[in-house]
């Protein structure tokens, strides 16, 4: 348990990271440092986006699948990394840098 928390804390400690959400296979967020409303909002939307992306990848090449989705927006930069059972959303403010 501490191990998992430590890992997430390490990610959060990166510069400019605003939020980290870990979601399980059923779409329930199990770890987040944002408030409840936002967590659910982001989880719902990105789950859909991820599912869509996976469908596209599988359609193009059945052996291939997406592992990391990097979205650059006007205000921030969102990384969605996924595996078989879980996926993680990391949100960072795009104007800050080292």
């Amino acid at each position, binding site marked *: 348990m501490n191990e998992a928390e430590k890992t*997430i804390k390490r990610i959060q400690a990166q510069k400019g990271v605003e939020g980290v959400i870990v979601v399980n296979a059923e779409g329930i967020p199990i*770890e987040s440092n944002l*408030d409840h409303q936002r967590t659910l909002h982001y989880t719902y939307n990105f789950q859909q986006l991820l599912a869509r992306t996976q469908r596209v990848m599988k359609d193009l090449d059945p052996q291939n699948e997406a*592992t990391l989705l990097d979205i650059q927006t006007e205000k921030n930069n969102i990384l969605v990394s996924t595996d078989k059972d879980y996926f*993680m959303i990391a949100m960072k403010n795009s104007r800050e*840098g080292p």
Partner: protein
Amino acid sequence: MFTDETLDIIGAESTWRKSHQQTQESRSCQTLPVDTAEVETQARDVSDNSTQTQDQISQALSIDRDISDFPGLLDFLHKVEDIVIKELVKNSKSHAFDGFRVNWEDQTESVSCMYRLQHVEAQERGLQVTGVSWNCTGSVIGCGFGRVDDGDWSNEKAYVCTWNLDRQNLNPKRPDMIIDVPTPVMCLCFHPVRPSVVAGGLYSGEVVVWDTSRSQDLILAQTGMSADTHREPVFQVSWVPGARRGEFMVLSAGSGGRVLLWTVDGAEAKLILSSGYALVQQQVPQCGAASRTRGSTTIGVTSVALSPWDLDTFLVGSEGGLVLKCSFSSETVSAVPPDGESVTLRAPVQFSFSPLGGPVHSVHFSPFHRNLFVSVGTDGLAHLHTVLQPRPLLSLRVSDSYVFGVRWSPTRPLVFAAATGQGLVQMFDLGRRSLRPAATVDQNTSGQPTYCLEFNPKHTNLMAVGNADGSVNIWQLSAELTEQGAKETAVLEQLANEVVD
């Protein structure tokens, strides 16, 4: 031989009348007495209860369950941790999107003429375009034909034409709708909310409101000739918000020195005068310069500008070169002797700006700053004023001849366009150091004047310009003239705060 004789009267008695009477009967009935009883109850025990919602205290989720509930979580996290951290660091260092601005539309580089709209009959008769107006959806352009150079009382038939620019089969030579008008049209204004309603001011002093969505009898309301109407040509009509929300009144101003507010009575098809203002020389507070017009005491109005910030203020430009600041709520009664009007005319003038050398053809408030306005007239200059002081902040030379119209750009705070008597539209950018125009748009009228121009409220890169040769040109402006740059509002603010000594 003949003798008089009287005979007995012979009568026949009726046999049936008696028998009917014998069959008469009468009946009556009555209800039984009604039973009533009274009972009372009262609650003995009372209890109160209430509920209330509480603010959600945002809490972060945290793992307080056993890690064994989530098989594979640790593995997942280990796998992705490195990738995510690497990406995050890379993104922080990346300069890929520095200064990246999304352009969702194509940028147009130059000003181009999209359409040249003409009404052949009007052009054959030599009528000029005196007013253009876009409707509230930005798809229909309407223009009024009349004459500006004729000094005579004219009863020449004129037209109001509209073209719908969003239609596929737009024919620039044939208007979508032609409305016949008995006298020349001097000005036109579409309704700010209803896309088919348009008001026009005529040379005879009448104000007419048309509804182009009707199939017959397009006139929605008109003033007719009564004691209330203008006796002189109406130079400006506008729609102003009325007493109730969503209602609009028509404001008309003419060279008779009257500014009148009408309410539309659709049922009677009449415009009813709701309040009026009369401008006279004696009631104008002088700004220091001696008044130049003597003789006639009424101040003929040639243009009106409504303030988009302050619903009470409006500006009046006069035939004598005066630019006056007026208020709708003024209570002073006008010095004009009453002439049978149904409402008492009031004197609205509060402040007078430094006069121009000739008639003021157009005044326009800046949509981006509450104090700034620009005025043009026959002296060929565009004066930038602030309402706080009489002298202009800036005077730009627009043309060597008269300037007939001026409008601020709806998207760029520092840009305005002026229509000149040489057939050119000069666009000025106050952000530039030079006082020369940023762009000159030639209307191809071979030297004939350009009388009016309007920016499209919805598609802000379109500009309609009406010319003396009877054509209306629709121009698509370049991105440079329509896209707002950074800090323009700040520069405008700075300009407005300069005080002229």
